[in-house]
């Protein structure tokens, strides 16, 4: 008895890293020798405690059997739950490879599930978002994708566009008919502008989901030599940024991901800002700082002078931190947080602050990158300027092209490339 499906594959189903248990999933035409070795009947849907011998050592694993077709992929599947150590997982991988299995391509499990009619394409995409969604608002976004709130909005845009198209086509194909009165291009332009406003709204309220868009970016800014790099290092609890007495040591942006019990933020240390430098490299470092600050989710403005007036471009968006409180404490009138990178005082409070930031909602709902791209494309096509004698035909063409983009969001996809794209973004093994 061998398993059913395509060539057998495996992948880690749990997040890599230290955890209580690690899950490795197997799917496809699993070799009968494997079932024999594990003393499992291929069609017995159950779980078994098995001591698996990896040669150098053995681990006590829980093995779950999902016979085809009642499994996630629709193929024969096994799940091996081992102790959550990456080394053990690596051993399991090697052990499986010796038995003729190969590691799955990204998204291959879901692709098979889709092939075997287990999930729909939209579901597949939703699932792929679900795996990677970590904050609450992303899950809400998923909800609106699945529940059809978004699709209603897109449909609405399309039906408005079709309304304009009908008007245009009448002008083009039936201009010689008595009933078709000349429409002015201005009127068409007006109706289109209304649709554009709605599309722009959609784009504003639904952001593209990218893996990195999950991480909130926190940027440290301030004058040179106030201790930004020291705070950076103590937040991360390691020496990443170079620290020196000399003002202007940090000239490039130093980035590091800070794990905060289940969440992550990206912290960026930047070159200090001072108007009086002549050093070209330092100047260009400052340009980078301003840029990083502009696109940051959150700013920490570091100072060592409680009297300092925060520059107005940062004022509203930053959290004020007074460093070096071990040397002289801030006056009681100081509104920010006092810390000492040196002694670690206040750093814990700062970390808490960052954590609440990481889990807060940005108000923007997320949709897949593909969907967002389509919306953007439709917007771009419709914003194309049309004019001249061929205004009507050009505008009609633009609407048709835009509608095609919108059609491809919910409706069906146009070619295999798109499908591959979705599955490539997929977390393997779910």
């Amino acid at each position: 008895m061998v398993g059913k499906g395509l060539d057998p594959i495996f992948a880690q189903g749990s997040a890599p890293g230290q955890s209580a248990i690690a899950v490795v999933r197997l799917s496809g035409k699993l070799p009968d020798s494997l079932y024999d070795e594990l003393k499992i009947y291929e069609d017995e849907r159950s779980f078994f405690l098995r001591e698996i011998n990896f040669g150098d050592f053995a681990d006590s694993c829980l093995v779950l059997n999902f016979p085809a077709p009642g499994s996630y992929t629709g193929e024969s599947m096994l799940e091996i739950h081992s102790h959550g150590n990456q080394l053990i997982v690596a051993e399991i991988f090697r052990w499986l490879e010796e038995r003729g299995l190969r590691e799955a391509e990204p998204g291959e499990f879901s692709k098979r599930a889709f092939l075997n009619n287990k999930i729909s394409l939209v579901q597949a995409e939703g699932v792929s978002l679900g795996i990677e969604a970590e904050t609450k608002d992303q899950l809400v976004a998923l909800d609106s994708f699945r529940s059809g709130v978004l699709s209603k909005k897109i449909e609405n845009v399309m039906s408005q566009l079709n309304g304009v198209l009908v008007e245009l086509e009448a002008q083009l194909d039936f201009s010689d008919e008595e009933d078709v009165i000349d429409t002015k291009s201005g009127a068409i332009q007006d109706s289109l502008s209304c649709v554009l406003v709605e599309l722009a709204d959609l784009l504003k309220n639904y952001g593209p989901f990218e893996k990195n868009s999950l991480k909130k970016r926190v940027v440290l800014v301030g004058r040179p030599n106030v201790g930004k790099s020291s705070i950076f290092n103590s937040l991360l609890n390691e020496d990443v940024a170079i620290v020196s007495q000399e003002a202007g040591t940090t000239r490039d942006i130093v980035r590091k991901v800070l794990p905060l019990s289940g969440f992550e933020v990206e912290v960026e240390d930047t070159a200090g800002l001072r108007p009086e430098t002549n050093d070209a490299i330092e100047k260009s470092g400052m340009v980078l700082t301003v840029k990083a600050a502009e696109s940051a989710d959150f700013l920490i403005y570091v100072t060592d002078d409680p009297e300092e007036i925060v520059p107005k471009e940062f004022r509203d968006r930053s959290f004020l931190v007074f460093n070096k409180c071990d040397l002289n404490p801030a006056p009681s009138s100081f509104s920010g947080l006092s810390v000492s990178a040196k002694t670690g005082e206040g750093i814990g409070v700062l970390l808490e602050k960052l954590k609440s930031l990481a889990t807060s909602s940005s108000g923007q709902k997320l949709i897949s990158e593909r969907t967002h791209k389509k919306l953007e494309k439709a917007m771009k096509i419709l914003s194309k300027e049309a004019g001249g004698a061929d205004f009507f035909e050009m505008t009609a063409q633009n609407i048709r092209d835009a509608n095609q983009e919108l059609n491809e969001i919910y409706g069906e996809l146009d070619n295999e490339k798109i499908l591959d794209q979705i599955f490539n973004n997929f977390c393997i093994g779910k």
Partner: protein
Amino acid sequence: MNSIFDLVVIGGGHAGVEAVLAGKRMGLNVALITLDKTKTGRMSCNPAIGGIGKTHLAKEIDALGGYMAEATDLSGIQFRTLNKKKGPAVQATRAQADKELYEKTIQAKLKKEQIDVFEDEVIDFEEKNCEVFAAVGKNKKYKAKAFVLTTGTFLNGAILIGSNKREGGRIDEKKASGLEKFFDKQNLMLGRLKTGTPPRLARETINFEVLEEQPGDQEVCYMSFLENKNHHPKQVSCYITKTNKRTHDIIKKNIKKSAMYSGLISGVGPRYCPSIEDKIMRFSSKDSHQIFVEPEGLESNWVYPNGISTSLPREVQEEYIRSIEGFESAEILQQGYAVEYDYIDPRNLEKTLRLKNLKNLFLAGQINGTTGYEEAGAQGMVAGINASLLVQKKAEWIPQRQNSYMGVLVDDLTRFGVSEPYRMFTSRAEHRLVLRQDNADERMFEAGIHMGLINKEREEVFLKKQKEKKQNLEQLRKTKIKFGDQIKTAHDLCKRNDFTMEDVKGTLEKTNKRFGETYYDIRYSGYVDKQRRELEKMRNLEEHDLGLIFDYAEVVGLSGEVKEKLNKTKPKNLLEASGVEGITPAALNVLAIHLKKIDAIRTS
């Protein structure tokens, strides 16, 4: 004696004429069988060729060496460009034809090409192993290697006027029958469609003084790419009048007497060509409708009042006609009538217009559910060419949507079928901007030359035009224009909206009469690229062979309906599958993945 031909075309309407001429150009031994020789090439309804979308087809027929456009140039008594205020993709040359001169011109052409024309009625086909070997006429049998059938409005045609229903394919012409039994044997269901025509009026009884005159264009324009090779006869004007409240009252009062409203007609008529009864009943808020008063010929006293086709009884026709300004004392020469006829669901056809279950029988024209001379001619072309290619044992030719209205036509018909008589509109073409009437020659040239449809004369005319366009292009490229501190070429300006075509032209030293075409080639070059990409994508689809899938029930991810359709149609490859009704791009993806899966299993 039974004759043996390469190609036999049945029906001397617009479809049949183009089909038989195409076969002749391709060097075949051809014959045309028709009910009445003297009516070959007859315009059954309005005396005009062209219209938005229709002209595009006429020009494509011409580009493949067909005769419709030349005959129009030789018999056209008024030429006008429609949609002049819009861009070139939707502009269309429309010609008013001298009806009699038109058919005489067609008949002279058939004679000149020495095509055997037989007067006979084909009532059956003899067939063995899905191959037709003879058309059975009432007089004799016609053997051939391939057949094109174009019965127009004649197959079991019925003429309807008021409560009167009689047999006939056109007024005063008999119907054709017998073939319905053949189709029945082939398990092909026939459907009924209908169309109508207005009463014809005597010119001398119309008061033209009170009518608005509508002259043709000042500038001479031609339907054929051969342009001034064919000289137009004398040019005349058309006129405009309109219905009024009294007309409407008369029609409303008598509506029950119309064949269309009395339940006499079962066939579906074209929505875009409604009878006056329909216009008045469906758009009751309108109190007037326009009528174009078109002469049917220079010598003829027949006048065609365009816009008031009807199937009301004669006395009502007379009454409402005379309620119209200018028609107060008009005499009716021929009553308006509706005709109902058999057609075949075109989904039974390959894109070559060959019947799927017969190896060598092609169908073209009204029998496939279309309406219009140009639509018929275009299909005649596709069917005639492919029947000839079959005889020559050469690969078939399928026009594509991406580069021709012919492609749009055969694709729409064979994929979606028809629910009412099908007519061409530019909005049916996704690639409208690049499917212009003026570049039909470029779009068809390669195929035309390849299949031997284009003679030396046409080729020279074509190459000369290309040369002229190239000269303009060179001028555009080398003319530099200063914008502040930037230098642009005139070529760059073609895509900008703040410069009109005239503005750009004004910057050039010299241009020729092809300037507009050159300008729009550049302006739409982005769309040409897109069109090319799509054609490439299609070629890719063609490479996916579906021969390995024997039962679509096995393909997971397809809906039951789609599976059933695929099992029924058995497409050869993904391209063909994409043409099956209801097949979405997602379904194609599922098929592509399934193919990969099969491949994986076979190679593992």
